[in-house]
């Protein structure tokens, strides 16, 4: 019945978990046991900041929504709303095509 609102307290033992590895999308399942999923901000960045255009040339913006392996981060983890996620993934795919973003992990 512990309060899950504060994610850091439930993990037990501070360790080096402090700076959460954001790009590691599957991180919640790792390490076994306990609900240590982090409360992510469940608001759409594009709605909140009134970002109208999601452009394939804007690598800085787009790279915030791809995991380190190059995958598009699902909206359930980023909080992006459906219409914006659609345009976001469109832009990411265009950026991949012109080698601004990777298709998959580089080895």
């Amino acid at each position, binding site marked *: 019945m512990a309060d899950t609102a504060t994610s850091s307290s439930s993990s037990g033992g501070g360790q080096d978990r402090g700076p959460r590895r954001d790009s590691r999308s599957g991180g919640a399942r790792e390490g076994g046991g306990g609900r240590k999923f982090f409360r992510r901000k469940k608001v759409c960045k594009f709605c909140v900041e009134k970002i*109208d*255009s999601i452009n*394939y*040339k804007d690598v800085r913006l787009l790279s915030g929504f791809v995991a380190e392996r190059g995958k598009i981060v699902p909206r359930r983890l980023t909080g992006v709303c459906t219409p914006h996620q659609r345009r976001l993934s469109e832009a990411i795919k*265009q950026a*991949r*095509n*012109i*080698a*601004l*973003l*990777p*298709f998959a992990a*580089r080895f």
Partner: protein
Amino acid sequence: MQQRTYEVMFIVRPDLVDEEIDKLVSTMESHATNAGAVVKNIEKMGKRRLAYLVRRFSDGFYILLTLEADGKAIHEVERRLRVSEPVIKFLTVRIDEEQKRLDKIKQLRSTKVKRSTAEPAPAPTPEAVAPAATA
């Protein structure tokens, strides 16, 4: 055919010198013009690291053309890019509809601001409606 606005981004191999790149760009520009496209803008985005290897190159010069063209002209420009040896990759994106959407949003935003500043304006409308209902 209908004129639309396109962005054509292409990557030139990194071992070219500046003069060769300039020459290639102006050649592409004239190809586009000859095909019936209007070149609105040319932007040399400079040398960039590629996100993955393209024809064994790990970086390249990015060039962005903004064209007003119909489908046929774009097709010809793409064909020229495809057969050009120093061009290792290109991408065409149509931007006029997105631009239209952005203009609309912008307009909507500005009218919203106006409406909120000029608050008492919508007051007379209920009066205008009332006599119409009785008639």
